């Protein structure tokens, strides 16, 4: 099995490199690869320089990072909740971010302010969920899940209420939630890069512990795993990565759900191998999504969240068919 995994690594990285290259040269304005090289070297036309270096490069980098981050968090949350249908938003982080963005948009805080407020409320929400779900020194994932669902529902109802009384901002709020990287600049990259990369690396340290936790909380503890510590780290770091991703790109769904699944199908459930592959596949997925968002209806753009949502439907159908076949075969 190890041989197969290693043999997949190089092609995967090459695919990532390829998709980034294609993404950098595609868009409303087509910049051939040769010119990209020239621009990086210091030349190229002024317009294309601006487009590539100020607009496209940060955007593609951000898409790759958010794709990787959400996929890694999705992988860990699926393990933590012992449920392959979990995703990074299942514990309420996204509802908090949406709530923060709504308030910021209503208050007219500008694009930067919206991002920070979304980030702040995302973290606040997961903290509230954790406090509610805690039972003495331990917290069970099922209570986290219930608390997350309850708080999310509450948050979204408040958002609806706010939209009702602030109809002028309504469409702006809706567009924010749809998720897109169209306004990503270098500031966003500098803010999120350390958070997401450091976060993913920290979480990866607990990959083997997570394997044990998947087979049972009690079992993991009896195997010497400090389950409460692992849970706390995975939840807090995972929420930070998700909050950073959502505050910049909006709520881009399905990445954190689909990518770990596909990765698991290819390389198995051992998190030590699964997590890096999830990261690479997630980066590819979101880079391709962003490329499509920019090119399908150029010069108009489609929010990235809509494209990922379009993938979600067929994916679930595929899962359903797969399960039916499995059940009928038994």
């Amino acid at each position: 099995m190890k041989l197969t995994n290693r043999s997949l690594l190089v092609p995967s990285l090459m695919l990532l490199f390829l998709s980034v290259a294609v993404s950098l040269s595609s868009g409303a304005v087509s910049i051939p690869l040769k010119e990209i090289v020239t621009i990086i070297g210091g030349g190229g036309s002024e317009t294309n320089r601006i487009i590539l270096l100020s607009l496209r490069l940060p955007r593609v980098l951000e898409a790759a990072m958010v794709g990787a981050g959400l996929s890694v968090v999705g992988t860990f949350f699926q393990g933590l909740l012992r449920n392959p249908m979990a995703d990074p938003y299942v514990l309420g982080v996204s509802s908090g971010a949406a709530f923060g963005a709504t308030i910021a948009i209503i208050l007219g805080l500008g694009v930067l302010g919206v991002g920070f407020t979304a980030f702040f409320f995302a973290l606040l929400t997961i903290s509230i969920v954790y406090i509610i779900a805690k039972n003495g020194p331990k917290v069970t994932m099922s209570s986290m899940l219930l608390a997350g669902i309850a708080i999310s529902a509450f948050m979204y109802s408040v958002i609806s209420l706010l939209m009702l009384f602030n109809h002028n901002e309504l469409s702006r709020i809706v567009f924010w939630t749809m998720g897109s990287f169209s306004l990503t600049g270098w500031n966003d990259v500098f803010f999120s890069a350390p958070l997401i990369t450091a976060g993913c690396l920290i979480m990866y340290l607990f990959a083997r512990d997570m394997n044990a936790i998947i087979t049972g909380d009690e079992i993991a503890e009896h195997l010497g795993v400090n389950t409460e510590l692992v849970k706390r780290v995975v939840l807090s770091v995972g929420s930070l990565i998700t909050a950073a991703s959502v505050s910049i790109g909006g709520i881009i769904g399905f990445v954190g759900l689909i990518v770990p699944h596909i990765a698991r199908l290819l390389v198995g459930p051992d998190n030590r191998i699964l997590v890096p592959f999830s990261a690479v596949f997630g980066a590819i997925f979101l880079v391709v999504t962003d490329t499509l968002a920019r090119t399908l209806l150029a010069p108009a753009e489609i929010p990235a969240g809509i494209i990922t949502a379009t993938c979600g439907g067929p994916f679930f159908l595929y899962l359903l068919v797969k399960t039916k076949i499995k059940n009928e075969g038994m």
Partner: protein
Amino acid sequence: MPLLQISNLSAGYLKKEVLNAISIEINKAQFTGIIGANGCGKTTLLKNISGYHHPWGGSVHISGKDIRKMSIRERARHIGYVPQDIPFDFAFKCFDLVMMGRMPHLGRFKKESGADREIVRDSMELTHTWHLKDRIATELSGGERQRVYIARALTQQPKIMLLDEPVSHLDIKYQVEVLDLLKELSSRGILILAVLHDINLASQFCDEIMIMREGNILSRGKPAEVITPQNIGSAFSIDVEIFDNPCTQTPYVVPRKKKKTRLKAV
């Protein structure tokens, strides 16, 4: 120095006391079965011995060391725990599952070595599961999976192995297989403490039996000494006849037929 020493162990959930100042000493490796009615505290006792739960009072020592003074990993090097079968939806191979038992010895950063792989192989061969090493754990039968779990506990190289109703849901063939295995492991120097549901199976396979009742050890000793109509009646609220198992000469419990009681007119 006793292998396992439990002193005045009291424990419970919220305000309810479940274990009532239990003291047990076991000096050598053997196969001990714990039986009792549901709710008498068997599982709680097991979880307090393993260190998973914190007792309200009293202590647990393994070869003289207080388990509360050990780190989680150190405890896992002394005690192996095999719980009831919990389903999970991830396609781990049996080999990988059993290898998890080496985690207490590896820490977070060490990779598995050839020596670890040898230990896994030994454990799996001992439990007759080596031929399942590449199979997906969730696709095995209950009995096979139970033996894989035991193999995993074995790779922890523990002094004590705790099992919570390891055979309750298995076919009789696998029940016998697993209990045979546990008996053999005890003869290899591991203290086996198993909560068992079936009094007769416990009687047949265990070196020693502890009968629990309402948070106390009602009686403790060899099966022949301990399995009496009085003890069984007191612990399980049932009238029984004790026979001699013709194959093993151990006590065999048979419930007495109830006398028909007339319904009184109210």
